[in-house]
């Protein structure tokens, strides 16, 4: 290839690299914002500080919930057709059991099942006492899959909503294999609160209280359940007592359209709720019919408060009080507003890095890179003379390309990524060393400088390509299988290898050939 060509390509790469690398330089980048592309190197959480969470969505629970609802549905739909179905209940989380008390309804019931509940696989009934038929039904595999996907999507949406309202800049929320959701929140100062907001199921229900039932009894009457009630007095330990409520909820969080934190005249924090039209109608009717009774407000299976109903409440407003701190009521409002999670979410992995530690990591990483770079640059410069200086310039060029590549791809710089850069500094010299040693050899064999340069580059290029390809294979594998920080390492190392090959084989060759042509009888300094 002609020298002119090589030179123009090299200059083009240099200019492009500058354009993509400069925005990432502190201070300078912001000053040049208007002219340059806005892509910048992102700092990883380990450098910026923040939280990395892996959440597991309990999709099995969502399936079981959905199965319970289908049981209720089945009972109601059958009732409409004058068929009695008894005791639908979920067994083992995956099977729905119910009883058809009158066996003569079986053909009609079968037809109803086929028409209305195609998502159920109903097995052959077993005859029980007094002509009852006992059925066991399962969801079809397709339905299970659908519910799992749906609940995962919904969980993702809900978590995203909550985080948006929580106010985090640049959150990164994505689905992962195995019903997992990965959440990255840079620059969060109170991880405990963030985890609480993200992980709370926030299943809100309103139940009527049954004062006539003793909640401590071992056997409760049908249709009544006992729930723990939070009694939090300021300055005292939190304790729980039981309270008996009707099993069926009057209203759920589905009917809440808005939730806001507020303060009462005692400066106590509470949360106000607005119901949607349907919710407001039901709320008005229920409160009207039950004046004098108590209404329990249940969140995630715990009763927060159980105020007495004084009068019919119109207008679709209600409130939850429970001796909240200001932050607690704010967070509760967020989760209620963003909707409840379709299934419980558990934190499988949490990694938190404080911002001060991140800064420390950057500082020591950059210090290491500087020390390493200066050491290598000096060593090569002394060892190879003028050629060493060319190698040093190529090293700088390589670093520039790495920075530009990361900026252009919007890659994330992590602490192992900085290590990758340091390692690149060490290994990038390899290509130059291979070439120079080869040129020295050829000169010893008596070749003219130009011939030696050409032979050296030719022969070394094969070895360089061969040996670097294995390293590239490794970085590709690291990228494929690595997580967060390791990926950052793979990116910088991979970019470093490719860039060093380009500068050593392509750019410096042009310089050397030109030099060898004009060096005169003294030969080149190598």
């Amino acid at each position, binding site marked *: 290839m002609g020298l002119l060509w090589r030179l123009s390509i090299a200059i083009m790469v240099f200019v492009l690299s500058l354009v993509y690398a400069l925005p990432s330089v502190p201070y300078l980048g912001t000053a040049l914002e208007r002219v340059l592309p806005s892509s910048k190197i992102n700092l990883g959480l*380990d450098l910026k500080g923040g939280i990395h969470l892996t959440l597991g969505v309990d999709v099995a629970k969502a399936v079981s919930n959905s199965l319970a609802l289908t049981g209720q549905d089945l009972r109601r739909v059958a009732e409409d057709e004058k068929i009695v179905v008894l005791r639908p209940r979920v067994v083992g989380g995956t099977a729905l059991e119910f009883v058809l008390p009158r066996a003569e309804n079986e053909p009609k019931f079968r037809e109803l099942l086929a028409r209305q509940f195609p998502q159920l696989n109903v097995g052959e009934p077993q005859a029980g006492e007094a002509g009852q038929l006992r059925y066991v039904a399962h969801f079809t595999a397709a339905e299970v899959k659908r519910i799992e996907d749906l609940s995962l999507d919904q969980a993702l949406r809900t978590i995203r909503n909550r985080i948006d309202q929580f106010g985090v800049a640049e959150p990164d929320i994505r689905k992962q294999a195995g019903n997992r959701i990965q959440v990255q929140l840079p620059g969060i100062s109170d*991880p*405990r609160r963030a985890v*609480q907001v993200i992980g709370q199921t926030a299943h809100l229900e309103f139940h009527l209280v049954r004062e006539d039932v003793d909640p401590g009894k071992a056997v409760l009457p049908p249709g009544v359940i006992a729930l723990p009630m939070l009694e939090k007095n300021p300055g005292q330990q939190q304790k729980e007592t039981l309270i008996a409520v009707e099993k069926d909820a009057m209203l759920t969080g589905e009917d809440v359209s808005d939730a806001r934190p507020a303060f009462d005249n005692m400066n106590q924090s509470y949360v106000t709720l607005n119901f949607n039209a349907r919710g407001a109608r039901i709320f008005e009717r229920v409160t009207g019919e039950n004046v004098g009774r108590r209404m329990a407000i249940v969140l995630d299976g715990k009763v927060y408060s159980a105020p007495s109903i004084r009068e019919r409440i119109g207008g679709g407003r209600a409130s939850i009080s429970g001796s909240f701190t200001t932050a607690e009521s704010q967070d509760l409002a967020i989760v209620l507003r963003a909707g409840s999670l379709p299934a419980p979410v558990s*934190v*499988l*992995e*949490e*990694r*938190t890095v*404080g911002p*001060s*530690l991140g800064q*420390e990591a950057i500082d*020591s*990483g950059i*210090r*290491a*890179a500087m020390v*390493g*770079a200066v*050491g*290598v640059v000096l*060593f090569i410069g*002394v*060892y190879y*003379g003028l050629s*060493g200086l060319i190698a040093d310039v190529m090293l700088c060029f390589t670093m520039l390309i790495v920075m530009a590549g990361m900026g252009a791809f919007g890659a994330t710089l992590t*602490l192992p990524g*900085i*290590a990758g850069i*340091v*390692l690149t*500094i*060490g290994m990038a*010299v*390899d290509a130059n*060393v291979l070439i120079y*040693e080869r040129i020295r*050899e050829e000169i010893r064999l008596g070749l003219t400088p130009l011939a030696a340069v050409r032979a050296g580059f030719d*022969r070394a*290029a*094969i*070895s*360089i390509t*061969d*040996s670097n390809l*294995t*390293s590239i*294979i490794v970085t590709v*594998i690291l990228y494929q*299988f*690595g997580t967060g920080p*390791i990926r950052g*390492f*793979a990116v910088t190392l991979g970019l470093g290898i490719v860039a060093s*090959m380009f500068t050593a*084989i392509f750019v410096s060759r042009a310089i050397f050939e030109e030099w060898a042509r004009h060096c005169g009888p003294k030969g080149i*300094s*190598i």
Partner: protein
Amino acid sequence: MGFAFIRHDTKFDFIGLRHWAYGISALLILVGIISTMWGNGLKMGIDFAGGVIVQIQFQQPVKDEALKKSLEVPALPGITTQKFGDGDRDYLLRFSNSENSDATQVRTAVVDSLAAAFPDNKAEIQRLEVVGPKVGADLTNKALSALFYAVLLIAVYISGRFEQRWMAGAAMAAALWGGTYLVGLTGLGMGWLVLISLAITLVVCFVLRLNFALGAVVGLLHDVGITLGLLSLMKVEVDLNVMAALLTLVGYSLNDTIIVYDRLRENLRATPELSMAELINRSVNQTLSRTILTSGTTFLATLSLFLVGGGVIHDFALTVLIGVVVGTLSSIYVSSAVLLALGDTDFYVALVQQKGKYERPGEHGVV
């Protein structure tokens, strides 16, 4: 004019010294095995084993014993403390048990007990990592898969590129896939799969007489094995960073091996009349200055990482440091020695001549 610390016409008899090198390698491997089996064992970090790490920083120095005592509360069972970095201000707290540890609980318990024990010396949580057993198992599988694919691809690449036997390489890949698939059916863990696939690779290379690939893979195993053994001896915890360092050293070790192999093939064509031992010696000597320079600069850069890069990257740097030294030696004494043991000069000459039309210097590569 530059220097030449290493004379260009060195004529060390590397191959003559090989029995010494074998002895040292065998000793290191033995020490590693003893250390992993009966000694410290290979300490798996929380990334793989699951668990909790809390890094705290005090405003004033704190004695280790006092800290230990302050954390002896029922809410934090089985906690261990470890000094981190210089000065007595930074500590790492670890729990191996991750079954029931909830990050929020741990955080609260640590903050509360430290505030109670050191009221005038505020402790700040700088880093908190909780990895559940499920995620740990996943990460382990991912790391082992990475290792598996690295070996697979590299073996195929070397047999293809070096011996122009892509078909043999493809056959090996197929044998590996098939073999691991069959073994996978038995329900063995990923660790066994990797071991078995490695064994398959070695056997297939041997049977197909892919000596270059065999030498490279044996060298790679040698390096990773010795490094792991030394890590165990030094009680270094294997976490994700160390895992990445191990893969990097796989790349580095091969890098070095390939440079020697490249030169060896060139010499095989140029002076086929020499014996294999002489050819290897000559090739190693010719690439010696390059090897020492590159290893030197890589070592230098990694050393700066090790010394000033900070605590988190410390073990990564240590692993690479060991790997650079071991990897450099293994390209001479393991990878090349395998070639010497498995074939005579005629075999390789035939291999190289037959492909003579390909692989003449300068006809390939990026020029």
